[in-house]
């Protein structure tokens, strides 16, 4: 699965969200409680979700209304939620503890996110057809 992390690394660099050193620090270092500010953590969670959605769905689909909702928890876990509003579908929901993030954990989360999105792709197709 190491290919997934390196693909995410390339994607972050291509989109110029971070420079090479920042990407290395984010993806390959062990995170701590204060690794990122709340705002920076939420941005990072959204980038993870956008990368996963792009892998599963390709580019944006004008027929859908997709939202990415990051939440940086303090006492409670953080989460990233991806929803589609026209069909009122939760495409992915993951609770996370970013203080545990390291290369292995980030890749595991990306893998889980992609699996949930793949499942919801089928569900979405059915709901668009059945519920209009």
């Amino acid at each position, binding site marked *: 699965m190491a290919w997934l992390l390196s693909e995410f690394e390339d994607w972050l660099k291509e989109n110029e969200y971070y420079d090479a050193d920042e990407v290395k620090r984010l993806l390959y270092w062990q995170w701590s409680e204060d690794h990122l500010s709340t705002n920076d953590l939420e941005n990072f969670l959204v980038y993870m979700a956008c990368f996963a959605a792009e892998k599963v769905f390709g580019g944006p689909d004008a027929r859908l209304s997709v939202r990415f*909702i990051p*939440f940086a928890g303090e006492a409670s876990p953080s989460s990233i939620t991806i*929803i589609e509003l026209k069909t009122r*579908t*939760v*495409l992915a929901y993951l609770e996370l503890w970013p203080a545990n993030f390291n290369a292995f954990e980030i890749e595991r989360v990306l893998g889980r996110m992609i699996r949930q999105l793949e499942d919801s792709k089928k569900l979405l197709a059915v709901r668009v057809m059945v519920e209009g």
Partner: protein
Amino acid sequence: MGLEEVLEKLADKPLLKEFAEWLYEHKCYGEDAIEELLCKEWDGAYPSALISDDLLVDIGSFLCFMAMFALERVYGEDWWTAKSRLHIRIVPEPSYDDRSYVYVLELKTRTVMAVGCERKTWHYDPETIEGDLKDLIEQLEKSEGLIAVRMVTDS
């Protein structure tokens, strides 16, 4: 100011009055904070007298309480316990200078039950808060049917 005086101020807004009692019973805020939040127009994105060291947490918590109150009204007080057949999560998306949202999700059927607030909280006032609560309750009432159908069709 005591709770009774706060409730008197909300006499013409029964839903907001009920929400005030709920906030007090659940120890979310004290009487003075409830008065600031529900009886007056906010003097910023959140009442300045109540701002803690994290404004977004303050706004997000208030939005979560609105969603919890609406959920309890529609789905009963066990909506979050093991007795419930649903797996509900509330996700706030507070913002200081943009629109704030609160989402109510049901994870077993992957359903977005409600999207609340959807506005800047700047100068949030009692009428608007009551309107947003009514809207949350209406969405949650509609979600009952949708979830029932999805429980059958998805399985």
